[in-house]
């Protein structure tokens, strides 16, 4: 998708549909939709510094065990060690997006092999989560 914020609504819709098609619960679909939106927002803000003429590639890989989203850009490299959300409950703008991403994805990792730009891999494991849910934990 183009790196213009007006396209974020499309990513949200596609993400939600992917979750629904693969039987994820409504609450999880909402969380994943928000998380992928936040990840793409970060690409626009930080990797492309607001440049709306670039491209963001979002790929989904879903099977019975995992819901995986890979988000690629060709912008400024992220420093994974510098990515930290603010303390929850603080009354200041910003710093929440990473919390929204990490709360619903078990894997949040940048592919170090990508030379130009970023490749963020987000994975939510479904089997363990389902077992946890079934066991009431």
């Amino acid at each position: 998708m183009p790196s213009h914020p007006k396209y974020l609504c499309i990513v949200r819709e596609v993400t939600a549909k992917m979750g629904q098609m693969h039987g994820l619960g409504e609450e999880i679909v909402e969380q994943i939709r928000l998380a992928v939106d936040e990840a793409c927002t970060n690409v626009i803000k930080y990797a492309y510094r607001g440049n709306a003429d670039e491209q963001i590639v979002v790929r989904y890989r879903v099977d019975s065990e995992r819901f995986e989203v890979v988000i690629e850009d060709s912008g400024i490299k992220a420093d994974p060690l510098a990515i930290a959300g603010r303390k929850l409950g603080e009354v200041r703008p910003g710093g929440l997006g990473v919390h929204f991403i990490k709360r619903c994805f078990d894997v949040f990792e940048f592919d170090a092999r990508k030379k130009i730009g970023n490749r963020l891999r987000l994975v939510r494991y479904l089997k363990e989560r389902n077992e946890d849910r079934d066991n009431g934990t």
Partner: protein
Amino acid sequence: MKIEITEHRGVKVFGLSGDIDMYSSPALRKELLSFVGKKAPLLFIDFREVSYIDSSGIATLVEGLRGMMSHGGKLKLLGIPERIVEIFSFSKLDKVFDICGTLDDAFKG
């Protein structure tokens, strides 16, 4: 996102509808900070028709809250749909914002 500004019993109400995200939150920020600059004592934001909010929208509201607090004013959020309340709860901002059910509740508090 649309913003409809009305007045009830002398209090301005920002009625929001649609998605509040990185694309739409700058318009909300502009309206909100313009209102904050007038140093009114009270502002209500009606969320009943809001379908989605992300961290950009939350940040805008936090900015508005801080602005209102800076001159002793109050900002109240009302009619927030359950799935959006959950985002405020997770962010621990449900204790920071004054969240009301209805317009009547907002006037009572």
